[in-house]
Protein backbone atom coordinates (compact mmCIF):
# COMPACT_ATOMS: atom_id res chain seq x y z
CA UNK A 1 0.00 0.00 0.00
CA UNK A 2 0.99 3.58 -0.44
CA UNK A 3 2.63 5.75 2.21
CA UNK A 4 0.88 8.85 0.91
CA UNK A 5 -1.56 10.57 3.27
CA UNK A 6 -5.26 9.84 2.99
CA UNK A 7 -7.42 12.42 1.22
CA UNK A 8 -9.86 14.24 3.46
CA UNK A 9 -13.59 14.01 2.85
CA UNK A 10 -13.74 17.70 1.95
CA UNK A 11 -10.91 20.13 1.55
CA UNK A 12 -11.72 23.88 1.54
CA UNK A 13 -8.29 24.49 -0.01
CA UNK A 14 -8.98 22.24 -3.00
CA UNK A 15 -12.47 23.71 -3.39
CA UNK A 16 -10.82 27.13 -3.29
CA UNK A 17 -8.38 26.15 -6.05
CA UNK A 18 -11.27 25.04 -8.27
CA UNK A 19 -13.22 28.20 -7.37
CA UNK A 20 -10.25 30.38 -8.31
CA UNK A 21 -9.84 28.52 -11.59
CA UNK A 22 -13.57 29.04 -12.29
CA UNK A 23 -13.23 32.76 -11.59
CA UNK A 24 -10.21 32.95 -13.92
CA UNK A 25 -12.15 31.05 -16.57
CA UNK A 26 -15.17 33.36 -16.37
CA UNK A 27 -13.02 36.49 -16.27
CA UNK A 28 -11.01 35.34 -19.30
CA UNK A 29 -14.31 34.53 -21.04
CA UNK A 30 -14.81 38.29 -20.71
CA UNK A 31 -18.12 38.01 -18.87
CA UNK A 32 -17.51 41.39 -17.27
CA UNK A 33 -18.03 42.99 -20.68
CA UNK A 34 -21.73 42.67 -19.83
CA UNK A 35 -21.17 45.39 -17.28
CA UNK A 36 -20.44 47.97 -19.98
CA UNK A 37 -24.05 48.25 -21.27
CA UNK A 38 -25.30 48.18 -17.67
CA UNK A 39 -22.98 51.06 -16.80
CA UNK A 40 -24.27 52.95 -19.84
CA UNK A 41 -27.85 52.31 -18.72
CA UNK A 42 -27.19 53.56 -15.19
CA UNK A 43 -25.43 56.67 -16.44
CA UNK A 44 -28.05 57.19 -19.16
CA UNK A 45 -30.78 57.26 -16.52
CA UNK A 46 -29.42 60.67 -15.49
CA UNK A 47 -30.65 62.21 -18.72
CA UNK A 48 -34.24 60.97 -18.56
CA UNK A 49 -36.99 61.93 -16.19
CA UNK A 50 -39.72 59.44 -15.34
CA UNK A 51 -42.75 60.14 -17.51
CA UNK A 52 -44.85 60.74 -14.40
CA UNK A 53 -42.30 63.04 -12.84
CA UNK A 54 -43.74 66.51 -12.65
CA UNK A 55 -40.59 68.33 -11.62
CA UNK A 56 -39.77 69.91 -8.24
CA UNK A 57 -43.35 71.17 -7.95
CA UNK A 58 -44.56 67.55 -7.63
CA UNK A 59 -45.95 66.51 -4.26
CA UNK A 60 -43.39 63.66 -4.04
CA UNK A 61 -40.20 64.54 -5.95
CA UNK A 62 -38.50 61.47 -4.44
CA UNK A 63 -40.50 59.34 -6.89
CA UNK A 64 -37.87 60.21 -9.46
CA UNK A 65 -35.24 58.58 -7.23
CA UNK A 66 -37.43 55.53 -6.68
CA UNK A 67 -37.65 55.02 -10.41
CA UNK A 68 -33.85 55.17 -10.57
CA UNK A 69 -33.48 52.64 -7.76
CA UNK A 70 -36.13 50.29 -9.13
CA UNK A 71 -34.51 50.27 -12.54
CA UNK A 72 -31.03 49.71 -11.14
CA UNK A 73 -32.12 46.96 -8.75
CA UNK A 74 -34.24 45.33 -11.47
CA UNK A 75 -31.27 45.33 -13.86
CA UNK A 76 -29.02 43.88 -11.18
CA UNK A 77 -31.57 41.17 -10.39
CA UNK A 78 -31.99 40.23 -14.05
CA UNK A 79 -28.28 40.24 -14.79
CA UNK A 80 -27.25 38.32 -11.70
CA UNK A 81 -29.98 35.66 -12.06
CA UNK A 82 -29.35 35.08 -15.76
CA UNK A 83 -25.61 35.08 -15.23
CA UNK A 84 -25.95 32.54 -12.40
CA UNK A 85 -27.99 30.21 -14.61
CA UNK A 86 -25.99 30.48 -17.81
CA UNK A 87 -22.51 30.32 -16.30
CA UNK A 88 -23.32 27.38 -14.02
CA UNK A 89 -25.10 25.55 -16.82
CA UNK A 90 -22.13 26.00 -19.13
CA UNK A 91 -19.33 25.08 -16.76
CA UNK A 92 -19.99 21.49 -15.63
CA UNK A 93 -21.40 20.07 -18.90
CA UNK A 94 -18.51 21.87 -20.63
CA UNK A 95 -16.00 20.08 -18.41
CA UNK A 96 -17.68 16.74 -19.16
CA UNK A 97 -17.82 17.30 -22.91
CA UNK A 98 -14.19 18.46 -23.02
CA UNK A 99 -13.10 15.60 -20.74
CA UNK A 100 -11.40 18.18 -18.52
CA UNK A 101 -13.41 16.60 -15.74
CA UNK A 102 -11.63 13.25 -16.28
CA UNK A 103 -8.26 14.76 -15.55
CA UNK A 104 -9.58 16.64 -12.51
CA UNK A 105 -11.39 13.66 -10.96
CA UNK A 106 -8.40 11.41 -11.64
CA UNK A 107 -6.44 13.58 -9.22
CA UNK A 108 -7.19 13.15 -5.51
CA UNK A 109 -10.20 15.47 -5.75
CA UNK A 110 -13.42 14.39 -3.99
CA UNK A 111 -16.45 15.20 -6.11
CA UNK A 112 -17.84 17.44 -3.38
CA UNK A 113 -14.73 19.64 -3.65
CA UNK A 114 -15.30 19.98 -7.37
CA UNK A 115 -18.99 20.92 -7.02
CA UNK A 116 -18.43 23.35 -4.16
CA UNK A 117 -15.46 24.88 -6.02
CA UNK A 118 -17.49 25.46 -9.18
CA UNK A 119 -20.38 26.98 -7.22
CA UNK A 120 -18.11 29.23 -5.17
CA UNK A 121 -16.39 30.38 -8.37
CA UNK A 122 -19.68 31.41 -9.97
CA UNK A 123 -20.91 33.07 -6.76
CA UNK A 124 -17.63 34.99 -6.45
CA UNK A 125 -17.97 36.36 -9.97
CA UNK A 126 -21.59 37.33 -9.29
CA UNK A 127 -20.43 39.08 -6.12
CA UNK A 128 -17.78 41.10 -7.97
CA UNK A 129 -20.20 41.97 -10.79
CA UNK A 130 -22.85 43.08 -8.29
CA UNK A 131 -20.31 45.09 -6.35
CA UNK A 132 -19.36 46.98 -9.52
CA UNK A 133 -23.03 47.54 -10.40
CA UNK A 134 -23.73 48.62 -6.82
CA UNK A 135 -20.94 51.20 -6.92
CA UNK A 136 -22.28 52.48 -10.23
CA UNK A 137 -25.79 52.69 -8.81
CA UNK A 138 -24.66 54.52 -5.67
CA UNK A 139 -22.60 57.04 -7.64
CA UNK A 140 -25.35 57.77 -10.17
CA UNK A 141 -28.08 57.81 -7.51
CA UNK A 142 -26.06 60.17 -5.36
CA UNK A 143 -25.68 62.54 -8.30
CA UNK A 144 -29.40 62.30 -9.10
CA UNK A 145 -30.33 62.92 -5.45
CA UNK A 146 -28.27 66.11 -5.43
CA UNK A 147 -29.91 67.30 -8.66
CA UNK A 148 -33.46 66.63 -7.40
CA UNK A 149 -32.65 68.16 -4.01
CA UNK A 150 -31.21 71.32 -5.61
CA UNK A 151 -34.20 71.64 -7.94
CA UNK A 152 -36.57 71.26 -4.99
CA UNK A 153 -34.65 73.80 -2.91
CA UNK A 154 -34.81 76.33 -5.73
CA UNK A 155 -38.49 75.75 -6.31
CA UNK A 156 -39.53 75.91 -2.65
CA UNK A 157 -37.40 79.01 -2.14
CA UNK A 158 -39.06 80.66 -5.13
CA UNK A 159 -42.57 80.03 -3.81
CA UNK A 160 -41.61 81.54 -0.48
CA UNK A 161 -41.05 78.54 1.83
CA UNK A 162 -38.89 79.12 4.88
CA UNK A 163 -35.33 77.82 5.18
CA UNK A 164 -36.28 75.16 7.74
CA UNK A 165 -39.12 73.86 5.59
CA UNK A 166 -36.85 73.73 2.56
CA UNK A 167 -34.28 71.78 4.57
CA UNK A 168 -36.96 69.32 5.67
CA UNK A 169 -38.09 68.81 2.09
CA UNK A 170 -34.51 68.26 0.97
CA UNK A 171 -33.90 65.83 3.86
CA UNK A 172 -36.93 63.84 2.72
CA UNK A 173 -35.43 63.64 -0.79
CA UNK A 174 -31.99 62.71 0.61
CA UNK A 175 -33.52 59.79 2.55
CA UNK A 176 -34.33 58.26 -0.83
CA UNK A 177 -30.71 58.48 -1.92
CA UNK A 178 -27.92 55.96 -1.25
CA UNK A 179 -28.37 54.28 2.14
CA UNK A 180 -27.66 51.12 4.10
CA UNK A 181 -31.21 49.92 3.44
CA UNK A 182 -30.58 50.17 -0.29
CA UNK A 183 -27.54 47.92 0.21
CA UNK A 184 -29.86 45.37 1.81
CA UNK A 185 -31.83 45.32 -1.44
CA UNK A 186 -28.64 44.62 -3.41
CA UNK A 187 -27.68 41.92 -0.93
CA UNK A 188 -31.11 40.29 -1.32
CA UNK A 189 -30.55 40.03 -5.08
CA UNK A 190 -27.07 38.60 -4.51
CA UNK A 191 -28.54 35.97 -2.18
CA UNK A 192 -31.19 35.14 -4.74
CA UNK A 193 -28.66 34.78 -7.57
CA UNK A 194 -26.53 32.50 -5.37
CA UNK A 195 -29.52 30.22 -4.77
CA UNK A 196 -30.28 30.17 -8.50
CA UNK A 197 -26.66 29.15 -9.18
CA UNK A 198 -27.05 26.27 -6.70
CA UNK A 199 -30.27 25.20 -8.45
CA UNK A 200 -28.52 25.27 -11.85
CA UNK A 201 -25.66 23.27 -10.33
CA UNK A 202 -28.09 20.57 -9.19
CA UNK A 203 -29.77 20.39 -12.59
CA UNK A 204 -26.45 20.28 -14.44
CA UNK A 205 -25.39 17.18 -12.47
CA UNK A 206 -28.08 15.05 -14.08
CA UNK A 207 -28.96 17.04 -17.21
CA UNK A 208 -27.76 15.81 -20.56
CA UNK A 209 -27.55 19.22 -22.22
CA UNK A 210 -26.80 22.83 -21.44
CA UNK A 211 -30.11 23.91 -23.02
CA UNK A 212 -32.09 21.65 -20.68
CA UNK A 213 -30.20 23.01 -17.68
CA UNK A 214 -30.83 26.61 -18.67
CA UNK A 215 -34.53 26.03 -19.49
CA UNK A 216 -35.17 24.08 -16.25
CA UNK A 217 -33.33 26.64 -14.12
CA UNK A 218 -35.31 29.50 -15.64
CA UNK A 219 -38.50 27.57 -14.94
CA UNK A 220 -37.52 27.08 -11.27
CA UNK A 221 -36.61 30.75 -11.06
CA UNK A 222 -40.11 31.67 -12.27
CA UNK A 223 -41.80 29.11 -9.99
CA UNK A 224 -39.73 30.45 -7.08
CA UNK A 225 -40.93 33.96 -7.82
CA UNK A 226 -44.63 33.08 -7.90
CA UNK A 227 -44.84 30.10 -5.56
CA UNK A 228 -45.87 32.10 -2.52
CA UNK A 229 -48.87 33.39 -4.47
CA UNK A 230 -49.74 29.84 -5.50
CA UNK A 231 -49.43 28.58 -1.94
CA UNK A 232 -51.57 31.42 -0.72
CA UNK A 233 -54.27 30.29 -3.12
CA UNK A 234 -53.93 26.65 -2.14
CA UNK A 235 -53.65 26.96 1.62
CA UNK A 236 -56.09 29.71 2.45
CA UNK A 237 -59.86 29.67 2.29
CA UNK A 238 -61.15 30.65 -1.09
CA UNK A 239 -63.36 33.65 -1.87
CA UNK A 240 -66.45 31.58 -1.18
CA UNK A 241 -65.07 30.07 2.02
CA UNK A 242 -64.03 26.77 0.38
CA UNK A 243 -61.37 24.91 2.36
CA UNK A 244 -58.39 23.69 0.30
CA UNK A 245 -58.47 19.92 -0.33
CA UNK A 246 -55.87 17.32 0.66
CA UNK A 247 -54.37 17.21 -2.85
CA UNK A 248 -53.98 21.00 -2.86
CA UNK A 249 -52.27 20.87 0.50
CA UNK A 250 -49.87 18.11 -0.53
CA UNK A 251 -49.10 19.88 -3.79
CA UNK A 252 -48.50 23.14 -1.97
CA UNK A 253 -46.18 21.45 0.54
CA UNK A 254 -44.19 19.74 -2.21
CA UNK A 255 -43.81 23.00 -4.12
CA UNK A 256 -42.62 24.84 -1.02
CA UNK A 257 -40.12 22.09 -0.21
CA UNK A 258 -38.70 21.60 -3.69
CA UNK A 259 -38.64 25.14 -5.02
CA UNK A 260 -37.04 28.12 -3.30
CA UNK A 261 -39.37 30.93 -2.31
CA UNK A 262 -37.97 34.09 -3.90
CA UNK A 263 -40.88 36.29 -2.78
CA UNK A 264 -39.07 37.06 0.47
CA UNK A 265 -36.02 38.30 -1.41
CA UNK A 266 -38.19 40.41 -3.71
CA UNK A 267 -39.98 41.91 -0.70
CA UNK A 268 -36.68 43.01 0.84
CA UNK A 269 -35.56 44.50 -2.47
CA UNK A 270 -38.88 46.36 -2.94
CA UNK A 271 -38.74 47.55 0.63
CA UNK A 272 -35.20 48.81 0.12
CA UNK A 273 -36.26 50.82 -2.92
CA UNK A 274 -39.16 52.33 -0.97
CA UNK A 275 -36.92 53.03 2.05
CA UNK A 276 -39.03 50.85 4.32
CA UNK A 277 -37.82 49.63 7.68
CA UNK A 278 -35.51 46.62 7.19
CA UNK A 279 -33.61 45.48 10.24
CA UNK A 280 -30.36 43.61 10.63
CA UNK A 281 -32.36 40.66 11.97
CA UNK A 282 -34.36 40.49 8.72
CA UNK A 283 -31.13 40.33 6.76
CA UNK A 284 -29.69 37.66 9.02
CA UNK A 285 -32.87 35.66 8.50
CA UNK A 286 -32.54 36.08 4.74
CA UNK A 287 -28.83 35.10 4.87
CA UNK A 288 -29.69 32.00 6.91
CA UNK A 289 -32.40 31.04 4.44
CA UNK A 290 -29.95 31.49 1.56
CA UNK A 291 -27.38 29.30 3.28
CA UNK A 292 -30.06 26.67 3.92
CA UNK A 293 -31.17 26.58 0.27
CA UNK A 294 -27.60 26.50 -1.06
CA UNK A 295 -26.63 23.73 1.38
CA UNK A 296 -29.67 21.63 0.45
CA UNK A 297 -29.12 21.99 -3.30
CA UNK A 298 -25.37 21.34 -2.97
CA UNK A 299 -25.92 18.16 -0.95
CA UNK A 300 -28.50 16.97 -3.49
CA UNK A 301 -26.04 17.76 -6.31
CA UNK A 302 -23.40 15.76 -4.49
CA UNK A 303 -25.72 12.75 -4.12
CA UNK A 304 -26.39 12.77 -7.86
CA UNK A 305 -22.81 13.56 -8.89
CA UNK A 306 -21.08 11.07 -6.59
CA UNK A 307 -22.63 8.15 -8.48
CA UNK A 308 -22.26 9.66 -11.92
CA UNK A 309 -20.17 7.67 -14.40
CA UNK A 310 -18.09 9.26 -17.12
Amino acid sequence: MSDRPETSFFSPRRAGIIALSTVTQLVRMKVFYFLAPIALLFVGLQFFDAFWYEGPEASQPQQELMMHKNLCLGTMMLFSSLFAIVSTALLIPGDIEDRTLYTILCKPVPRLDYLVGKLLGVISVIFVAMLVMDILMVVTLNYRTQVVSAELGEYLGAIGWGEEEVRQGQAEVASHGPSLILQYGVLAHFFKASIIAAVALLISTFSTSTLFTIASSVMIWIIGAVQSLAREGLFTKGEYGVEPGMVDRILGTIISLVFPDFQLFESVSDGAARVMEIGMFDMLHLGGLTFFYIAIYTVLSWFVFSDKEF
Partner: protein
Amino acid sequence: MGRYAGLIMSEVPAVQVNRLVKDFRGPFRGGGIRAVDEVSLSIAPGEVYGLIGPNGSGKSTTMKAVLGLVKPTAGSCAIFGRDSSKVDSRMEVGFLPENPYFYKHLSAAETVSFYGKLCGMRGAALKARVDEMLELVGLEEARHRRLRGFSKGMLQRIGLAQALVQDPRLVVLDEPTAGVDPMGSRQIRDLILDLKGRGITVFLCSHLLEQVQEICDRVGIIHRGKMVNEGDLEDLTSIHDRTEIILQDAPPELLEQIRNLVDQANKGELVSEGHPRSSLESLFLKETIEAESKQKAVSTKQS
Protein backbone atom coordinates in the same frame (compact mmCIF):
# COMPACT_ATOMS: atom_id res chain seq x y z
CA MET B 1 8.30 6.75 6.78
CA GLY B 2 4.53 6.53 6.54
CA ARG B 3 2.00 4.29 8.18
CA TYR B 4 2.49 1.52 5.63
CA ALA B 5 6.24 1.37 6.14
CA GLY B 6 6.02 -2.17 7.45
CA LEU B 7 4.77 -3.49 4.14
CA ILE B 8 7.08 -4.56 1.36
CA MET B 9 6.16 -2.23 -1.51
CA SER B 10 7.21 -4.52 -4.35
CA GLU B 11 4.75 -7.21 -3.25
CA VAL B 12 1.74 -5.01 -3.92
CA PRO B 13 0.76 -4.88 -7.60
CA ALA B 14 0.56 -1.42 -9.12
CA VAL B 15 -2.80 -2.38 -10.66
CA GLN B 16 -4.95 -5.29 -9.67
CA VAL B 17 -8.16 -5.93 -11.60
CA ASN B 18 -10.13 -8.82 -10.22
CA ARG B 19 -12.93 -10.41 -12.30
CA LEU B 20 -14.18 -7.01 -13.41
CA VAL B 21 -17.67 -6.88 -14.91
CA LYS B 22 -19.27 -3.72 -16.22
CA ASP B 23 -22.79 -3.63 -17.59
CA PHE B 24 -24.32 -0.52 -19.12
CA ARG B 25 -28.06 -0.30 -18.84
CA GLY B 26 -30.02 0.38 -21.98
CA PRO B 27 -32.98 2.71 -22.27
CA PHE B 28 -35.37 -0.26 -21.93
CA ARG B 29 -35.39 -3.32 -19.72
CA GLY B 30 -33.01 -5.94 -20.95
CA GLY B 31 -31.48 -3.61 -23.52
CA GLY B 32 -28.18 -3.19 -21.72
CA ILE B 33 -24.75 -4.31 -22.82
CA ARG B 34 -21.87 -5.98 -21.03
CA ALA B 35 -18.83 -3.87 -21.83
CA VAL B 36 -16.38 -5.79 -19.64
CA ASP B 37 -16.84 -9.44 -18.80
CA GLU B 38 -14.85 -10.97 -15.95
CA VAL B 39 -11.56 -9.29 -16.86
CA SER B 40 -8.65 -9.89 -14.50
CA LEU B 41 -5.16 -8.47 -14.80
CA SER B 42 -2.27 -7.60 -12.60
CA ILE B 43 0.48 -5.09 -13.34
CA ALA B 44 3.68 -5.25 -11.35
CA PRO B 45 5.38 -2.03 -10.20
CA GLY B 46 7.74 -0.65 -12.84
CA GLU B 47 6.12 -2.60 -15.66
CA VAL B 48 4.81 -1.17 -18.95
CA TYR B 49 1.53 -2.91 -19.70
CA GLY B 50 -0.42 -2.47 -22.93
CA LEU B 51 -4.10 -3.26 -23.24
CA ILE B 52 -5.00 -3.75 -26.88
CA GLY B 53 -8.20 -4.58 -28.68
CA PRO B 54 -10.55 -3.34 -31.38
CA ASN B 55 -12.88 -0.37 -30.91
CA GLY B 56 -15.63 -1.10 -28.40
CA SER B 57 -13.81 -4.07 -26.92
CA GLY B 58 -13.86 -2.68 -23.37
CA LYS B 59 -10.34 -1.20 -23.09
CA SER B 60 -11.40 2.29 -22.07
CA THR B 61 -14.10 1.00 -19.70
CA THR B 62 -11.51 -1.18 -17.95
CA MET B 63 -9.23 1.83 -17.69
CA LYS B 64 -12.04 4.03 -16.36
CA ALA B 65 -12.89 1.41 -13.74
CA VAL B 66 -9.25 1.40 -12.64
CA LEU B 67 -9.42 5.18 -12.35
CA GLY B 68 -12.73 5.16 -10.48
CA LEU B 69 -14.60 6.98 -13.25
CA VAL B 70 -17.06 4.07 -13.64
CA LYS B 71 -18.34 1.73 -10.94
CA PRO B 72 -17.81 -1.98 -11.49
CA THR B 73 -21.01 -4.03 -11.73
CA ALA B 74 -19.00 -6.86 -10.18
CA GLY B 75 -15.38 -7.46 -9.31
CA SER B 76 -12.87 -4.94 -8.04
CA CYS B 77 -9.94 -2.75 -9.02
CA ALA B 78 -7.08 -1.63 -6.82
CA ILE B 79 -4.13 0.70 -7.28
CA PHE B 80 -1.13 -0.15 -5.11
CA GLY B 81 -3.47 -2.05 -2.84
CA ARG B 82 -6.03 0.74 -2.46
CA ASP B 83 -9.57 0.35 -3.73
CA SER B 84 -9.62 2.45 -6.89
CA SER B 85 -13.13 3.75 -6.19
CA LYS B 86 -11.63 5.64 -3.22
CA VAL B 87 -10.20 9.10 -3.82
CA ASP B 88 -7.00 8.26 -1.89
CA SER B 89 -5.85 5.84 -4.58
CA ARG B 90 -5.60 8.69 -7.10
CA MET B 91 -2.62 10.29 -5.40
CA GLU B 92 -0.57 7.52 -6.99
CA VAL B 93 -2.03 7.91 -10.49
CA GLY B 94 -1.46 10.23 -13.39
CA PHE B 95 -3.97 9.94 -16.22
CA LEU B 96 -3.79 11.14 -19.80
CA PRO B 97 -7.13 10.68 -21.59
CA GLU B 98 -7.50 10.17 -25.32
CA ASN B 99 -7.48 13.53 -27.14
CA PRO B 100 -7.29 15.51 -23.91
CA TYR B 101 -8.76 18.95 -23.55
CA PHE B 102 -7.73 21.21 -20.76
CA TYR B 103 -8.88 24.66 -19.75
CA LYS B 104 -8.04 26.67 -22.85
CA HIS B 105 -7.93 29.90 -20.87
CA LEU B 106 -4.89 28.71 -18.93
CA SER B 107 -1.29 28.83 -20.10
CA ALA B 108 0.93 25.73 -20.14
CA ALA B 109 2.54 26.63 -16.80
CA GLU B 110 -0.83 27.56 -15.23
CA THR B 111 -2.29 24.22 -16.34
CA VAL B 112 0.46 22.12 -14.77
CA SER B 113 0.37 24.32 -11.67
CA PHE B 114 -3.44 23.92 -11.39
CA TYR B 115 -3.20 20.12 -11.39
CA GLY B 116 -0.26 20.26 -8.97
CA LYS B 117 -2.31 22.36 -6.55
CA LEU B 118 -5.15 19.85 -6.76
CA CYS B 119 -2.65 17.26 -5.53
CA GLY B 120 -1.80 19.41 -2.52
CA MET B 121 1.43 20.90 -3.88
CA ARG B 122 2.26 24.53 -3.24
CA GLY B 123 4.95 27.20 -3.05
CA ALA B 124 8.49 26.78 -4.28
CA ALA B 125 8.15 22.99 -4.56
CA LEU B 126 5.24 23.38 -6.95
CA LYS B 127 7.02 26.03 -9.00
CA ALA B 128 10.11 23.84 -9.32
CA ARG B 129 7.98 20.84 -10.28
CA VAL B 130 6.14 22.85 -12.95
CA ASP B 131 9.48 23.93 -14.45
CA GLU B 132 10.72 20.35 -14.34
CA MET B 133 7.61 18.96 -16.02
CA LEU B 134 7.62 21.59 -18.77
CA GLU B 135 11.25 20.81 -19.45
CA LEU B 136 10.55 17.09 -19.48
CA VAL B 137 7.86 17.44 -22.16
CA GLY B 138 9.78 20.10 -24.07
CA LEU B 139 7.32 22.95 -23.58
CA GLU B 140 9.44 25.49 -21.66
CA GLU B 141 9.25 27.96 -24.52
CA ALA B 142 5.46 27.72 -24.62
CA ARG B 143 5.01 28.04 -20.86
CA HIS B 144 3.21 31.39 -21.05
CA ARG B 145 1.14 30.55 -24.12
CA ARG B 146 -2.51 29.76 -23.59
CA LEU B 147 -3.60 26.25 -24.55
CA ARG B 148 -6.11 27.68 -27.05
CA GLY B 149 -3.34 27.87 -29.65
CA PHE B 150 -1.72 24.49 -28.93
CA SER B 151 -1.42 21.72 -31.54
CA LYS B 152 -2.63 18.20 -30.77
CA GLY B 153 0.89 17.01 -30.05
CA MET B 154 1.50 19.91 -27.67
CA LEU B 155 -1.78 19.22 -25.88
CA GLN B 156 -0.78 15.60 -25.54
CA ARG B 157 2.54 16.64 -24.04
CA ILE B 158 0.96 19.09 -21.61
CA GLY B 159 -1.41 16.25 -20.71
CA LEU B 160 1.56 14.10 -19.87
CA ALA B 161 3.07 16.92 -17.80
CA GLN B 162 -0.12 17.27 -15.72
CA ALA B 163 -0.35 13.50 -15.34
CA LEU B 164 3.16 13.39 -13.88
CA VAL B 165 3.04 16.55 -11.77
CA GLN B 166 2.49 14.87 -8.38
CA ASP B 167 5.17 12.29 -9.13
CA PRO B 168 2.77 9.35 -9.37
CA ARG B 169 3.94 5.74 -9.27
CA LEU B 170 1.43 4.74 -11.95
CA VAL B 171 0.66 6.50 -15.24
CA VAL B 172 -2.45 5.53 -17.19
CA LEU B 173 -2.40 6.54 -20.85
CA ASP B 174 -5.42 6.17 -23.13
CA GLU B 175 -4.29 6.27 -26.76
CA PRO B 176 -1.37 8.57 -25.93
CA THR B 177 -0.37 9.16 -29.54
CA ALA B 178 -3.83 9.43 -31.12
CA GLY B 179 -3.84 12.14 -33.78
CA VAL B 180 -0.20 13.06 -33.19
CA ASP B 181 2.27 13.24 -36.10
CA PRO B 182 5.14 10.69 -36.24
CA MET B 183 7.63 13.15 -34.74
CA GLY B 184 5.35 13.95 -31.78
CA SER B 185 4.48 10.30 -31.49
CA ARG B 186 8.17 9.41 -31.24
CA GLN B 187 8.67 12.05 -28.52
CA ILE B 188 5.79 10.62 -26.51
CA ARG B 189 7.12 7.12 -26.96
CA ASP B 190 10.55 8.27 -25.75
CA LEU B 191 8.89 9.90 -22.74
CA ILE B 192 7.15 6.63 -21.89
CA LEU B 193 10.47 4.80 -22.13
CA ASP B 194 11.96 7.48 -19.88
CA LEU B 195 9.18 6.85 -17.33
CA LYS B 196 9.94 3.16 -17.51
CA GLY B 197 13.60 3.98 -16.84
CA ARG B 198 12.56 5.88 -13.70
CA GLY B 199 10.64 2.86 -12.43
CA ILE B 200 7.18 4.34 -13.04
CA THR B 201 4.48 1.81 -13.90
CA VAL B 202 2.72 2.54 -17.20
CA PHE B 203 -0.69 1.18 -18.16
CA LEU B 204 -1.62 2.11 -21.71
CA CYS B 205 -4.26 1.47 -24.35
CA SER B 206 -3.29 1.94 -27.95
CA HIS B 207 -4.33 1.02 -31.45
CA LEU B 208 -0.77 1.46 -32.69
CA LEU B 209 0.38 -2.10 -32.24
CA GLU B 210 3.89 -1.41 -33.50
CA GLN B 211 4.33 1.15 -30.76
CA VAL B 212 2.89 -1.15 -28.12
CA GLN B 213 5.33 -3.82 -29.25
CA GLU B 214 8.20 -1.36 -28.97
CA ILE B 215 7.54 -0.19 -25.43
CA CYS B 216 5.47 -2.74 -23.50
CA ASP B 217 6.76 -5.51 -21.28
CA ARG B 218 3.42 -7.26 -21.15
CA VAL B 219 0.21 -7.01 -23.11
CA GLY B 220 -3.40 -8.04 -22.69
CA ILE B 221 -5.65 -8.58 -25.68
CA ILE B 222 -9.27 -7.77 -25.00
CA HIS B 223 -12.11 -8.64 -27.35
CA ARG B 224 -15.84 -8.17 -26.79
CA GLY B 225 -15.19 -7.42 -23.16
CA LYS B 226 -13.20 -10.58 -22.47
CA MET B 227 -9.47 -10.94 -21.97
CA VAL B 228 -8.55 -13.39 -24.72
CA ASN B 229 -4.78 -13.48 -24.21
CA GLU B 230 -2.30 -12.00 -21.82
CA GLY B 231 1.39 -12.38 -21.11
CA ASP B 232 4.97 -11.27 -21.70
CA LEU B 233 5.35 -9.60 -25.07
CA GLU B 234 8.42 -11.69 -25.90
CA ASP B 235 6.55 -14.94 -25.21
CA LEU B 236 3.47 -13.89 -27.09
CA THR B 237 5.17 -12.59 -30.21
CA SER B 238 8.16 -14.86 -30.76
CA ILE B 239 7.73 -17.79 -33.17
CA HIS B 240 9.37 -20.55 -31.22
CA ASP B 241 10.03 -22.93 -34.15
CA ARG B 242 11.91 -20.29 -36.18
CA THR B 243 15.37 -18.71 -35.76
CA GLU B 244 16.56 -15.38 -37.14
CA ILE B 245 20.23 -14.72 -37.97
CA ILE B 246 21.12 -11.20 -39.09
CA LEU B 247 24.52 -10.76 -40.79
CA GLN B 248 26.37 -7.53 -41.44
CA ASP B 249 28.28 -7.15 -44.78
CA ALA B 250 28.02 -10.87 -45.62
CA PRO B 251 29.54 -11.66 -49.09
CA PRO B 252 27.44 -13.74 -51.56
CA GLU B 253 29.81 -16.71 -51.15
CA LEU B 254 29.13 -16.89 -47.40
CA LEU B 255 25.38 -16.79 -48.00
CA GLU B 256 25.76 -19.60 -50.57
CA GLN B 257 27.70 -21.67 -48.01
CA ILE B 258 24.93 -21.18 -45.43
CA ARG B 259 22.29 -22.28 -47.96
CA ASN B 260 24.31 -25.41 -48.79
CA LEU B 261 24.82 -26.18 -45.12
CA VAL B 262 21.07 -26.05 -44.49
CA ASP B 263 20.47 -28.33 -47.52
CA GLN B 264 23.12 -30.83 -46.40
CA ALA B 265 21.91 -30.93 -42.78
CA ASN B 266 18.56 -32.33 -43.94
CA LYS B 267 17.04 -30.85 -40.78
CA GLY B 268 15.24 -27.58 -40.77
CA GLU B 269 14.29 -25.40 -43.72
CA LEU B 270 15.42 -22.00 -44.98
CA VAL B 271 12.13 -20.11 -45.10
CA SER B 272 13.26 -16.73 -46.41
CA GLU B 273 16.24 -14.48 -46.81
CA GLY B 274 16.61 -10.86 -47.79
CA HIS B 275 17.45 -7.44 -46.44
CA PRO B 276 15.70 -6.44 -43.24
CA ARG B 277 13.43 -3.44 -43.71
CA SER B 278 13.37 -0.34 -41.62
CA SER B 279 9.89 0.86 -40.64
CA LEU B 280 8.21 3.66 -42.55
CA GLU B 281 8.17 5.60 -39.28
CA SER B 282 11.97 5.37 -38.94
CA LEU B 283 12.41 6.44 -42.57
CA PHE B 284 10.07 9.41 -42.08
CA LEU B 285 11.85 10.51 -38.92
CA LYS B 286 15.29 10.10 -40.51
CA GLU B 287 14.30 12.19 -43.55
CA THR B 288 12.57 14.96 -41.59
CA ILE B 289 15.35 15.22 -39.01
CA GLU B 290 18.00 15.31 -41.77
CA ALA B 291 16.07 17.99 -43.67
CA GLU B 292 15.71 20.03 -40.51
CA SER B 293 19.41 19.85 -39.65
CA LYS B 294 20.34 20.80 -43.23
CA GLN B 295 18.04 23.81 -43.05
CA LYS B 296 19.54 24.81 -39.70
CA ALA B 297 23.07 24.51 -41.11
CA VAL B 298 22.14 26.71 -44.11
CA SER B 299 20.56 29.37 -41.94
CA THR B 300 23.57 29.34 -39.59
CA LYS B 301 25.90 29.83 -42.57
CA GLN B 302 23.75 32.68 -43.93
CA SER B 303 23.68 34.46 -40.60
